[in-house]
């Protein structure tokens, strides 16, 4: 789960990382009022969407009056912000964050993440932070410093000092940097983060370090030990179908095409998306049914696909394993079709445990499905069905 900038900043501030004072606003009026509350002479109005590249896309504006703050917020709120990272549809802006502006002399890049190759938490840092960090990293990788943390010893002072030195910091600034590093590491561990990226960690005219922008991702697998995340998640602007899917423990990601896809297994689902594309088809979603799925969870997934007006055909591919059985899938499909009878062709490829029972179950229940022999046959039939199906809003 991605946190919003204001959520991440509030969290880091609680760990002692300095951040500018700011207020979150859902209306232009609130944004204007925030400038009075914050005081000062200049402020930054920032669109709260989960994507980088906001500055270049007009999602960050520096203002020097309450009126200008209202104006900037007015333009952003309710609109869609299209950045290099959002895709063409962009992301809806429901909140802006108003911060006191500060003059800066230097921009540091600092990120904590899990290094997958070695399975440890690592820091990445560069003295050349800011919006161009990706190009800087590609052009001169020697200017990106990496510090890998041994979980047995934790972050050691000497290593933090060395990293500060590598970044050209000295004296009080080096000390402040080491303190920030320790705070970020503690926040990372205690909040089951997958990423905390501060870019820039700015050096102000007064010589202080301030986290000007923060991107934070937390590990969904650790939700059980963070009941407080529910609130963060409610504000995280997830698609309504994604909320429904989460309720039924389906791994679901909406996509742009018109073939509804349900597959028992994430890897196989990825493979199916590729096979549809090879045949000129486009998936409307990625939906992975976990091995522990029940009939009702499967039915909920099929209902979601039937309810998606873009979907012209549904492809269900099951490889029954030792835990999930194909007949559970069949019962789920039958249940959903009875609750919401529609005219969407459903193509089913069943293989593995209880395959025959699955086919029998669907036939006996009178559910009209097209059976496919193997993966290629299933993909062929799904693409053909989507092309000739009368339903759908005309997405390609």
């Amino acid at each position: 789960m991605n946190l919003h900038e204001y959520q991440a900043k509030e969290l880091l501030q609680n760990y002692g990382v300095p951040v500018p004072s700011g207020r979150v606003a859902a209306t232009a009026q609130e944004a204007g009022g925030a400038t009075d509350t914050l005081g000062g002479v200049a402020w930054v109005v920032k669109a709260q969407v989960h994507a980088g590249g906001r500055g270049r896309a007009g999602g960050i504006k520096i203002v020097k009056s309450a009126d200008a703050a209202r104006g900037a917020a007015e333009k952003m709120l309710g609109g869609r912000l299209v950045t290099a990272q959002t895709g063409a549809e962009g992301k809806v802006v429901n909140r802006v964050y108003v911060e006191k502006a500060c003059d800066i002399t230097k921009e540091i890049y600092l990120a904590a993440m899990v290094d997958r190759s070695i399975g440890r938490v690592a820091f990445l840092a560069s003295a050349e932070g800011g919006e161009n960090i990706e190009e800087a990293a590609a052009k001169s990788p020697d200017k990106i410093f990496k510090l890998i943390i041994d979980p047995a010893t934790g972050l050691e002072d000497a290593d933090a000092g060395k990293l500060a030195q590598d970044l050209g910091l000295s004296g009080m600034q080096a000390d402040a940097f080491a303190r920030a590093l320790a705070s970020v590491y503690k926040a990372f561990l205690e909040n089951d983060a997958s990423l905390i990226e501060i870019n820039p960690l700015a050096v102000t005219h007064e010589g202080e370090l301030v986290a000007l922008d923060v991107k934070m991702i937390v590990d969904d697998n650790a939700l059980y030990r963070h009941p407080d995340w529910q609130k963060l998640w409610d504000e995280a602007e997830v698609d309504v179908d994604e909320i429904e899917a989460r309720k039924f423990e389906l791994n679901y990601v909406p996509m742009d095409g018109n073939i509804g896809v349900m597959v028992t297994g994430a890897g196989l689902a990825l493979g199916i998306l590729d096979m549809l594309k090879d045949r000129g088809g486009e998936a409307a979603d990625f939906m992975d049914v976990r091995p522990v799925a029940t009939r009702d969870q499967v039915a909920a997934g099929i209902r979601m696909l039937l309810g998606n007006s873009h979907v012209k055909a549904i492809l269900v591919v099951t490889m029954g394993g030792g835990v999930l059985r194909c007949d559970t899938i069949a019962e789920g499909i039958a249940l959903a079709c009875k609750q919401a009878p529609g005219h969407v062709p459903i193509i089913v490829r069943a293989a593995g445990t209880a395959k025959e029972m699955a086919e029998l179950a669907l036939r006996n229940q009178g559910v009209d499905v097209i059976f496919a022999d193997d993966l290629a046959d299933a993909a062929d039939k799904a693409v053909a069905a989507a092309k000739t199906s009368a339903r759908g809003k005309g997405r390609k």
Partner: protein
Amino acid sequence: MGILVDADTKVICQGLTGATATRLTERAIAYGTRMVGGVVPGKGGRSHLHLPVFETVAEAVIATRPDASAVFVPPDKAASAMIEAIEAEIPLVICVTERVPVLDMVRVKRALEGSKTRLIGPNSQGVITPDVCKIGVMPERPHTKGRVGIVSRSATLNYEAVDQTTNVHLGQSTSVGIGGDAVYGMNFIDCLKLFFDDPATEGIILIGEIGGTAEEEAAEYLKQVKPKKPIVAYVAGLNAPTDRRMGHAGTVDVFGEGSAAAKIEALEAAGAIIAPSAADMGKTMRRALGGR
């Protein structure tokens, strides 16, 4: 032959009395796997499926001398269970648990360093050498004893490869699921090494997916060793975003790297034969091994 397990492999199950563990252990016993006991804190001293249940892994080790442990415990206790098995020096630990927090796995990885244990998973379907030994959650039926070693991040793609190699009459020497998470035990390289040394394995199917750099690292290794056995590789997710979690936690990359295209390019450059789709893994291996 085959890798990791054989007919003599003695196996305990951590979390034996759970519903899924019970069902799958019954099936493992029916398949011929030498199950010798279980570990369930609070239920030590009982018997389940005619197997002795122990309070701790250390007690189970003294009483049964297992070669492997199958970890079937919930995500909140999975890391402790793996670490307990590592500390008890069980040579092979296979964790099927899904949704283990990644920072827990950072601790488990640290415990593995310098230990006597090989870890498979978590989020793995397990290991099977057909007709000999099965540890995990895979369906038995599509497997046939044979010539191809399979190693995969995804369980269902692994089953597809098994089904396909059975259909083209190649069969499998051993099939291994290394799991779909970001931080995990044995990787592609570890399994490739074992397959290269295994006389029963004539060709290897490597199944990757978006996210991380495990496929690129495997490609780098293949370049160095120039294996004599053919490697067929399939990578899923050419048309999926890498900044979203596509089911497996390991598919998402924080900086959006780990594209399928980059992995395919690296593996092809290292001499692997690329299966063009998930439906073509068996056929491609059949051709690579000189059949039609």
